[in-house]
């Protein structure tokens, strides 16, 4: 399915603000309520931060792509990169809270790789009644993102 919005940027910290603004425009256009839009922006910010911090080690730079698709009363946002992928990282500078936070904000969360072997974080948000029971859907062995030192919290 063709996304409604596809934004590709170098994976740099300052570009996360551009993603947030683009999502703000999307939220206003689709008349999302403030809380829902805030949750979406926070979750996508976390996913983009993971790309910036973890995807390209040793100061390397690569692309960060954000795709948003509205289907019915669900908004799916995919954050994609061409980095080293998902895996344990003992030297992670983060607290390991990013993915559990995303999982608590999104209706569903899937981690994995697309057909072109790019790392994907796929988040679905319900636009009808705010939050429902969050589910953490994991895609195979690759399910622990680099910053996640502990297994995902049962939610």
């Amino acid at each position, binding site marked *: 399915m063709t996304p409604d919005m*596809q*934004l590709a940027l170098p994976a740099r910290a300052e570009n996360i603000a551009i993603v947030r603004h683009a999502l703000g425009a999307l939220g206003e256009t689709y008349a999302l309520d403030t809380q829902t839009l805030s949750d979406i922006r926070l979750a996508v910010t976390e996913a983009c931060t993971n790309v910036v911090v973890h995807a390209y080690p040793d100061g390397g730079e690569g692309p960060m792509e954000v795709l948003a698709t509205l289907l019915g009363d669900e908004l799916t946002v995919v954050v994609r990169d061409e980095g080293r992928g998902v895996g344990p990282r003992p030297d992670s500078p983060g607290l390991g809270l990013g993915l559990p936070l995303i999982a608590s904000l999104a209706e569903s969360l899937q981690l994995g790789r697309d057909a072109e072997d790019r790392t994907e974080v796929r988040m679905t948000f319900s636009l009808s009644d705010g939050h429902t029971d969050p589910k953490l859907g994991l895609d195979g062995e690759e399910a622990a993102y680099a910053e996640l030192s502990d297994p995902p919290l049962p939610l």
Partner: protein
Amino acid sequence: MNDEGSGGEPQPYESTASLRLARGPLVAPVLCRVVSMVLARANCPMDRLDDALLICDALSAHTPDHVRDGSLAFALSARERCFELRVSELPHTAAAQLVRDSVVPGVGNVLERMADELRIEPAGDGKHEELVLELRF
């Protein structure tokens, strides 16, 4: 110049983004927001930011008439005192038509008036062309 370089040495600013939007209500708001952010980070003065947004409005209004596959593709690039906006994947002859469509009565051609440089380039795939607009500030 910004001051984000190592050792306090200023580094030349450069920012790029590519944006693909489905034809519809998202085009104008998302394009304007993304362009605003890229220009703000490039320390673009307010008057040129206004000019860029007028260009975005004109492109948002008329580009959807000239795309075939239902989505619009843009490539943005900001360097020191220069911003380039490419409207990509246009069918042949669509770029010139898009420029002609951007005439506002009493104002003239918005794209030609606001951009410092406007040109049409063939796309790398040989099937499409690109409208390239440059703003200097």
